[in-house]
Each structure stands twice: as C-alpha cells, then as structure tokens.
C-alpha cells in the first residue's frame, strides 16, 4: 500500500514530508557516481526548471539536497546524479531497482539559460558540477537555433571521473565546442591536463554578450568567474551554483545561510555579481 501525504505545502509534516519515487533504473557513471532514474509512485511528474534541486531521502538514514540532472519539460524519469560521499548518498547508492526513495521539492533558483538567447552560451563544469548543468545544456540543444556558439568547458580530477562521456560526444556532434581537461592524467590519457580555467582563453565565444553558467567546487567557480570576467564577461552574465548544508530547502532551517542569502531560496544559482564580495571571505 502506498499513501501520499496531503497538504504538503505546510510544515510539519507538510513541506517536510517527502513524495515517494521508485527507482526505475540506475546507471553507474564512475566509480563513485551514479544516476538514479526515478518514477513518481503517484504518477504525477515533478515539474522543475534546470538548476533546481530536490531534497532526497533514504528512509531511516536521512535527507540531502541533490540537483536534478534530467531535462526539464520532457517526459521521462526524474534523474539525479549522485556521488557516494556520505551516509545518505551511500544509502542511495545501495538502493535497488524497485525501491522507494523520498523526494521533496524542487527548490531554489534555476540557470535561466534562456537569458543567453541571441548570444553565445558558455557552460563551465568541475567534476560532478556537470550534472546540474546537464538540464541547461539539453534545454539549449532543444532550442539550438536561439543561441549562438555553445561551449562546454569541463574539468575533472582524473579521466576516470568524467561523467556522461557518451553524451559529450553527442553534444560535440550537435555543434557544441566541448573542451575537456583533467587535473591528473593517466598513461592512456591523450587529452589536456590542467585546470578548467586554462580552457577559458582558448574557447570560442564572444565575451561581450556571452552568458556563462558555472558549476563545480566553490574555489573552481571563483577562479573560473574571475577568468571569465577577465576575458570580458560582465559579472551579471556569469552564474554560479552554490552548495551549502541544507536541512529543509524552504529557508526555515538556517543551515544554508551565506551572510544574508538563504542558498536554498536565493540560490543555488546566483549571478556572480551577487556573491563576488562574499566568495573570497574565508569560512563565511
């Protein structure tokens, strides 16, 4: 028997009560990262915009914020790409097909990639930061003619950490300039080695009008944003996706505060201009 909570717009339980989603399929992306394909048990799909996240529950273990990695406004399962790094993500990693997980949300701001229409779009991803950018990329490719040049700059620690490698080739075939680099090469690696910021100078985009979406570790986003601005982008046209501890997703638990910002409500996606004065302050 499955029963769904009513009145989930209010606390408690309300907004804190998860909806139930069943694991329909699962893909192991790298040694520690996997993608969950989830179907709502009540048949009502989750509507979201690219860049938003949900609070995912492993029953009896806990709840964590995870960005949506599936395309928006397209039929198909809800996808979350998860790295197995903590107790909840480890429990999610062990979820079997047919098992039920909890989902609350979606929460937060989106990439609003449509602001890049008529101009070039630059997506810069570090590590698992490619997952939250994937819905934005798929949105751009669905409306390819609206955009100018589309560039993906993608850096990971090692070649083994590269996500969505089949898809990267497909995107390249669709005319996306895909530049990949790794921090540490392996003997068989013939690609670039170095930080993702080194790709910014060689990518083909018009910095005067381009929209940049950046997602990765905070230090990577900071240096990437600075390099993009140095190349000529306006700080308003550089968007970053922040990560903070979150326990509610609706601005009540206080954990995600970044000085005056609630990252769950005001973010996770924010213009770099909004956080430029905060991101360099240690332990803020």
């Amino acid at each position, binding site marked *: *028997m*499955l*029963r*769904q*909570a*009513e*009145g989930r*717009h*209010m*606390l*408690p*339980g*309300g*907004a*804190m*009560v*998860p909806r*139930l989603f*069943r694991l329909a399929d699962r893909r192991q992306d790298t040694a520690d990262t996997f993608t969950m394909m989830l179907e709502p048990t009540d048949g009502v799909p989750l509507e979201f915009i690219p860049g938003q996240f949900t609070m995912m*529950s492993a*029953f*009896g*273990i*806990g*709840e964590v914020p995870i960005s949506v990695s599936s395309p928006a406004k397209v039929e198909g399962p809800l996808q979350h790409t998860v*790295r197995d*790094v*903590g107790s909840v*993500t480890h429990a999610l990693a062990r979820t*079997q097909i*047919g*098992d*039920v997980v*909890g989902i609350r949300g979606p929460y937060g701001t989106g990439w609003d990639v449509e602001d890049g229409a008529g101009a070039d779009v630059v997506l810069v991803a570090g590590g698992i930061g490619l997952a939250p950018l994937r819905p934005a990329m798929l949105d751009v490719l669905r409306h390819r003619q609206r955009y100018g040049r589309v560039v993906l700059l993608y850096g990971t620690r090692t070649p083994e950490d590269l996500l969505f490698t089949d898809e990267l080739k497909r995107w390249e075939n669709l005319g996306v300039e895909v530049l990949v680099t790794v921090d540490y090469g392996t003997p068989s690696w013939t690609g670039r080695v170095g930080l993702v910021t080194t790709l910014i100078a060689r990518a083909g985009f018009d910095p005067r009008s381009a929209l940049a979406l950046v997602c990765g570790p905070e230090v990577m986003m900071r240096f990437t944003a600075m390099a993009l601005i140095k190349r000529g982008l306006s700080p308003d046209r550089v968007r970053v996706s922040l*990560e*903070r*501890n979150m*326990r*509610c997703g*609706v*601005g*009540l*638990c*206080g*954990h995600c*505060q970044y*000085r*005056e910002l*609630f990252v769950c*409500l005001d973010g996770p996606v924010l213009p770099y201009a909004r956080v430029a004065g905060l991101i360099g*302050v*240690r*332990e*803020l």
Partner: protein
Amino acid sequence: MDDIRGMVLLLPGLQLLIDVLRESGWTVRGPTVRDGVVVHAEIESVDQLPAGVGDLQDGASYRLRERGDGAVFGYVVGPQGWKSLLFPSRELLWSGHRTGTEVDVEPADVDAPRLALLGVRSCDLHALEIHDTVLAKRAVPDAAYLSRRENTFIIAVTCSDPGGTCFCVSMGTGPVPDKDFDLTLTELVDQEGHRFLVQPGSDRGEHVLDELMTRAVGDEVLNAARTDRCAAALVGSKAAQRMGRSLDTDGLRDLLYANAEHPRWDDVASRCLACTNCTLVCPTCFCTSVEDVSDLSGTQTERWRVWDSCFTNDFSYLHGGSVRPSVRSRYRQWATHKLASWVDQFGTSGCVGCGRCITWCPAAIDITAEVGAIRSGEG
C-alpha cells in the same frame, strides 16, 4: 479623560484572572522558581509565582535574591524564552513504515494547546513578533508554529527591575510592552499596597477584563485611579534608565559586513567554547536540523526536527569538511546574522536585547562588548 481602559487587581484579583483564563480553557504558563532559576511552568495559583524573588545577572552569572517586597514579577528574564512552547526543541515531522519495497509516510499531527502566557516581557514580545516573521510569514510557513501561535493568549508585564545584562532600550524593544498582547500588567508595590494595573490590548483581553469585573465579589478588582496610571508609567520610565548594558546600533549592519576580517573575531574565538548556550537561550534563534530515527529492523522510521546551533562543527558540514571549521567564523556568523544579515533577510534586527546570551555564556562573552570593540577598532 483617559481613553485606555484599565483596572487594578490585588493579588486575589490576579488569582481570579488565572481562574477565569483556566475556566475558559486556557492552560496558564507563568514564572516559578525551580533549581534556583525562574522558569515557566503551568500556573494554577498565585502561590506558585516567584514572590519577593529578584535576580542578579551579569556575564556568566545568574543569582536569585530576596527582594523583601513580595513582588511576583520582580525578576527579569530567566534562561527560557517562550519559544520552546511555540517552537518545540524536538518535533516529529512524519513517521514512515516500510513493507518490503513499499513505504508508507504519515505526517505528524500538530499539537496546539491553548496557552495563556503570563508575565511576557517586552523583549520576549518582540522576539515572538520576530518568530512570526521568520517562521510564519514565509513562502512556506511553519504551520505548526502558526497554529500554536493562534492558540496563545498573552499577558505581558512591564519590567520594573531590569537586569545587569539587559539592553532592550538600545534595541528599541522595551521595557514597556507596547503591542501584540491581550492584557498587560504593571506591578505596583508602594505605600498604596501591592497591586497590578491591568490594561487590555485586544478584544479577547477586553472580554477577560469584563469577566473579571463580573466575577469580583470584594475589592480584589477595582477601577484604576489616575494615581495608579501615573505610578505605572513611572515604573517603565525608571526601568528604561537602568539598563545594565547598551549597544550602539547606528550603522551596525554595514559595520559588521565591513569587518568580517576584524582581529576581534580571533579574540572572541580564544574565549568562546562553542558550547551553543547562547543560541539555545536566545529567544529568536530558529535554526533546526532533522534527525531520522529508525527501529533495529529498519521498517519503522521517524523524522524529527530538532533545534540546532550554528556553533557546532556539523552545522555547515559538506562532503569534505565544514564551511566554518573555526570557532572564529562561527561566532562571526552568529553575531553577524543576529545584528546585520537578519535586517536584510527579515527587515529587523534579530536581537531584542534580553541579555540571555551574556548571562548564560559560561565564558561571559558579551555581544555588546564584542560589537563595541569592533566599532572602536580594538583588536
């Protein structure tokens, strides 16, 4: 002609007020002495009130004293605010039951008893107003808080004897209750005797006063005389002049934003134990965490919301480590949130000047002194 209604209650009249409220279905919570501290508890009789009890408060110090005048509201504020009644420290969100691969999730019921809060100080009234903004007037409100708040009757009281750590005057939050109460009391102890001027602040309050007048059989409830009003006004104005602390709030938000790297934060960190006492006694701190509790078989699970504190290492934990591993950054976060970023988030300061964080800090860290040091440029 005074257009504010008012009555004077003698101590038996205060008992009658408690009786009337109880008979109308309110559970009265008011001050009483337990373990050497004024706490709130269910009150049935005026005999439970802290008669003749005052308090001496300073950094890391709280002592009760004998006042010798029988005043029942002669103390200031104890460690507890009222928030634990409206925003419990542990609250069940939902429970779940797993059968094979199926999970059944049941939202928790909200328990919202009708509570009459007796003896709410002006600082704590403002703290309630802040929680109304933070918890209820949000895109996603805390419905449990909202229903408890709606079931709350407030009997405020004017502070007559502010404590050594009080600074409500600086924060513009006291000492005289000016709004958001059903009834407000001013305790008078002088040559005219021990009595309480009671004034209504809401229709509900008016009705209770009408009921009191009807029920009074002797002189325990009287119409207030002009002299009573004058004496009551004096209680508040005298109290305002006797604040133990002060805080210069001029440009405070910008001052703290501009001084995120001030060496004073290191100095505080050398004294702060990160014990979380300040956040637990603070009547406006609202941060929570969630805990999953499961039985051994893993079939029965519950999710609880619990008070949390920005002073813990776990509070800001992300994979790989905490955003704020140092005590320096945690104290900075707390003080900056309370006095600066709160203004951006909610339109008011998050501090009501109750002084609890100073009194109950085991290291006697004083937010007014720390901010004062930053303002004066001291390391």
